């Protein structure tokens, strides 16, 4: 292996054996053997993965949930053993799959610091030398002689992080450690990353967060379904990552008719994406004509917050009054000013004076936005631009 290579992964494959009913007892092992029953399923998690990380690189590994990135991380860290292929590591590697591994709630903060330090490879003497620094950085001076179980989760994370950043390693492996903690803590994390980058440390970062990939990584790799999809420029990889979702979410998920108040009305909404715009194809079919009715739409974020609403009698669009005389077909084009999130749409047919709901279609379409919006107009209370076309 060349001197400037820190990690070399060659043709690594990994398969997990997933027992249908985990035979952790001898009896089932015997029975399965006797019946020649295959009590398990094989799941290929990584196929022939190869890549190199150079010394001093800040290398990002990205992928969706279940893409195999965490498995890869554990293979690099030496926690799992690959089925085939080889992994060569040049230097001392310290993995952070999780913060505060080995923390014991029954021990005091002080005792946990020493235990955790030993797990990171520090001797007691070394730990004693930096103990004060660790405590000070974690801002926990008053609590060190209390049991860890009496700490808040934030305090535990602070303590763990404060020890972790002292790890002396040639190669650091980080797994979404960022995902926890409040804003102040995340800021500390980012500062630590920036420091690692300045000091030309070799770092492997596994994450979902494309912002931090583009901010810190000098190179990134995208894996999906156990294959390497892309390996190179972080911006390019982030782009590819977002494209993975487009196939799935561009059309939206049709959820049938939702709950129906009036069985004589049928409604259907289809969702499409265009650059910067969202398109809704709406089709409403009343069995009998409905007079003096309006169409109302309310869009929610997945957590239930309302983000947009509109009704056909709102001023400005000059729609005809007799919308539901016969079948209604219209296309709504909505400017995409929304944050990345999951959304769903409710459709209502209401009396003009709002005294009566003719039909309520909840959750008539569901869709997701993955990439954050370039413009954050939504936060400033902007209304999206909108266009309606009757068909």
């Amino acid at each position: 292996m060349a001197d400037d290579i820190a990690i070399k992964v060659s043709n690594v494959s990994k398969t997990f054996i997933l027992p249908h009913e985990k035979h952790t007892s001898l009896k089932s092992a015997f029975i399965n053997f006797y019946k020649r029953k295959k009590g398990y399923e094989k799941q290929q998690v990584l196929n022939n993965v190869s890549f190199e990380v150079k010394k001093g690189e800040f290398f990002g590994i990205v992928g969706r949930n279940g893409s195999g990135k965490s498995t890869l991380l554990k293979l690099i860290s030496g926690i799992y053993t690959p089925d085939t292929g080889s992994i060569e590591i040049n230097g001392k590697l310290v993995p952070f799959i999780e913060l505060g591994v080995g923390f014991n709630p029954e021990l005091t903060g002080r005792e946990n610091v020493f235990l955790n330090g030993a797990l990171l490879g520090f001797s007691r003497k070394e730990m004693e030398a930096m103990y004060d620094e660790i405590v000070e950085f974690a801002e926990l001076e008053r609590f060190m002689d209390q049991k860890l179980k009496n700490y808040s989760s934030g305090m535990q994370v602070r303590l763990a992080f404060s020890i972790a950043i002292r790890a002396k390693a040639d190669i650091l492996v980080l797994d979404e450690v960022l995902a926890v903690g409040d804003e102040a803590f995340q800021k500390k994390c980012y500062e630590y990353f920036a420091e690692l980058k300045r000091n030309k440390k070799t770092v492997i970062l596994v994450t979902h967060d494309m912002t931090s990939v583009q901010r810190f990584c000098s190179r990134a790799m995208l894996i999906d379904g156990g294959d390497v999809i892309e390996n190179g420029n972080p911006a390019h990889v982030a782009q590819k990552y977002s494209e993975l979702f487009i196939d799935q979410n561009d059309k939206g998920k049709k959820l049938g008719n939702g709950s129906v108040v009036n069985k004589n009305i049928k409604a259907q909404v289809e969702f499409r994406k265009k650059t910067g715009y969202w398109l809704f194809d709406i089709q409403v079919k009343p069995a009998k004509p409905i007079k003096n009715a309006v169409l109302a739409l309310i869009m929610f974020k997945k957590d239930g917050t309302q983000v947009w609403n509109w009704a056909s009698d709102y001023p400005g669009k000059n729609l005809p009054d007799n919308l539901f005389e016969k079948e209604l077909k219209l296309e709504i084009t909505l400017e995409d000013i929304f944050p990345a999130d999951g959304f769903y749409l409710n459709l209502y047919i209401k009396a003009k004076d709002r005294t009566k709901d003719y039909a309520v279609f909840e959750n008539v379409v569901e869709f997701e936005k993955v990439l954050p919006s370039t413009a954050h107009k939504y936060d400033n209370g902007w209304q999206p631009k909108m266009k309606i076309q009757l068909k």
Partner: protein
Amino acid sequence: MKQYISKQNKALLSELVRTDFKLRYQGSVLGYAWSLLRPLLIFLILYIVFVKFLRLGADVPHFPIYLLLGIVLWNFFSEMTSQSLTSIVGRGDLIRKIRIPRWMIIFSTSISAVINLFLNLLVVGMFLVLNKVELSWSVLWLPLIIIEIYIFALGLSLFLSAAFVKYRDMSYIWEVILQAGFYLTPILYPLTLITNEFFQKLLLMNPMAQAIQDARYSVVTHETITTHTLFEGGWYMFIPLILVVVVLLGGLLYFKNEAKYFAENI
């Protein structure tokens, strides 16, 4: 070899053992005193039942010490194996999250057991003095006998802990085997109680029986049946030792093979 005794590993080992001890008597009023008090009290019960009521071993000099030594050594064996058995699964959090040498977990558990053994031997020592047992030079064999038991227990611990990851039945099976072993080993009764010489020989094939008898011979009284006296120097007096080596090698091999998959199987 050097990598096994690196500075980091030593620090980690001492920290794991320390934690183990801190947690053992967590929340108890008497704390560490229990590690002496517990064997003392258990011994007291056995002494009353077996020496005063059942009047076993009346013909053996210093039978109470004889009894105590046997119990202490057996307890060490039983504690080390049964605690190791669950140790890999119990430390699953470490195994799945960091790169910790797997054998280190077994090793730290075994060291905790050894420390406990020495505390118990202190109690034995106290009774030796109280009972005015005259020690002979043969007491120097004791460390070697303890090493033998340790190696035997280590081999079994390696095997059991690795097997427990896959088969959770192991803990119940081992519990039963330990119970059977306790009665098959001349601990509560002197070996002279068994009059059939063939059965005596058979019982002494068990490394634990051989070790306990040897320990009694070297520390308490030379009037103890050992493999040496029973087999009169035949080669098969080494069978228990061979068994110990076989168990260690088997355990090591199995553990080494399985250790690669601990993280995914736990």
